[in-house]
């Protein structure tokens, strides 16, 4: 029991995680490339056209994964943040800050692809559709999180404050989504919904899933890259960073 705890702490220490993350990054890039290429191949080259929406529907293979990831990353971010707040792991706060920009990127991409989809479907770039509106609010939440963390100098306080914000955000997201949906149905029932294709063909589903997996692997790879930089920056006064950055041949001369 005690041993296990020590192991978790060891893993959670930046010193142990830094080289591990470095080894994992190429693997996640490879997976991202495989899934992404497979998904795009199915989505753009194999899948048949949609009778109702024409070829424009193929944006779904980008839009839906981006939306999923933007929401999923917020959840993961809040999970790390909560873990950091509860158990005082240094690593979790760093993970949360490393995830936020990628989540914001996906929220933006979801809005962008949504707008480019809306134009041919609804004849307008922007519709106050429940999904798009919630996605916009999610982007605001990400921006708030990043802005809060970047305006606090002490990284420990930044982590904790960000964690509280992320947790409050996670509690609020369902409420926001529900309220926006309610508001939407009262004001205008949009006839075409982005995901409600009459019959979601199996190939389409596969394409979407593979693209989403690709985006997921991409997020992990990018987040690991970012967290490594954050570790170096924050732990720059520790010995392990010095050892990590020591030029070859210098080790002998140091002592």
């Amino acid at each position, binding site marked *: 029991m005690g041993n296990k705890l020590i192991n978790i702490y060891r893993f959670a220490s930046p010193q142990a995680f830094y080289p591990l993350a470095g080894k994992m990054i190429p693997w996640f890039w490879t997976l991202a490339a495989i899934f992404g290429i497979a998904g795009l191949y199915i989505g753009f080259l194999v899948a048949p056209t949609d009778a109702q929406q*024409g070829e424009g529907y193929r944006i779904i293979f980008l839009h839906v994964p981006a939306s999923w990831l933007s929401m999923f990353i917020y959840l993961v971010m809040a999970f790390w943040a909560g873990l950091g707040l509860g158990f005082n792991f240094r690593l979790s706060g760093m993970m949360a800050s490393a995830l936020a920009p990628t989540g914001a990127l996906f929220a933006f991409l979801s809005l962008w692809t949504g707008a480019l989809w809306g134009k041919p479907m609804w004849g307008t770039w922007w519709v106050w559709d429940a999904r798009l509106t919630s996605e916009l609010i999610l982007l605001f939440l990400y921006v708030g999180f990043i802005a809060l963390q970047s305006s606090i100098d002490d990284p420990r306080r930044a982590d904790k404050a960000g964690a509280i914000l992320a947790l409050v955000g996670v509690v609020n997201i369902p409420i926001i989504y529900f309220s926006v949906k309610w508001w939407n149905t009262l004001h205008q029932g949009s006839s075409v919904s982005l995901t409600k294709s009459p019959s979601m063909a199996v190939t389409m589903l596969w394409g979407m899933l593979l693209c989403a997996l690709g985006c997921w692997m991409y997020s992990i790879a990018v987040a690991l890259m970012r967290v490594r930089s954050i570790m170096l920056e924050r732990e720059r006064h520790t010995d392990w960073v010095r050892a990590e950055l020591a030029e070859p041949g210098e080790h002998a001369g140091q002592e």
Partner: protein
Amino acid sequence: MYWNSFSEFMAMGNHGVYVWGSVGVMAILMLLEPVLLIQSRKNLIARLKRQFRAERSDANTDRKTSPQR
């Protein structure tokens, strides 16, 4: 394979601008993010190395001057 020709593929049934606009922006941003990360990481490492070297040379000069004191 669903498409008959490359030009048909590019046209996307008259929705080419929207489809390729989505694909293009998404591809650019998703490539840009890691590139920027690698860039900033290089800068960070260079900065830290400079800092460590400066500290080391400070320490060395201290050692040299200390016997005179």
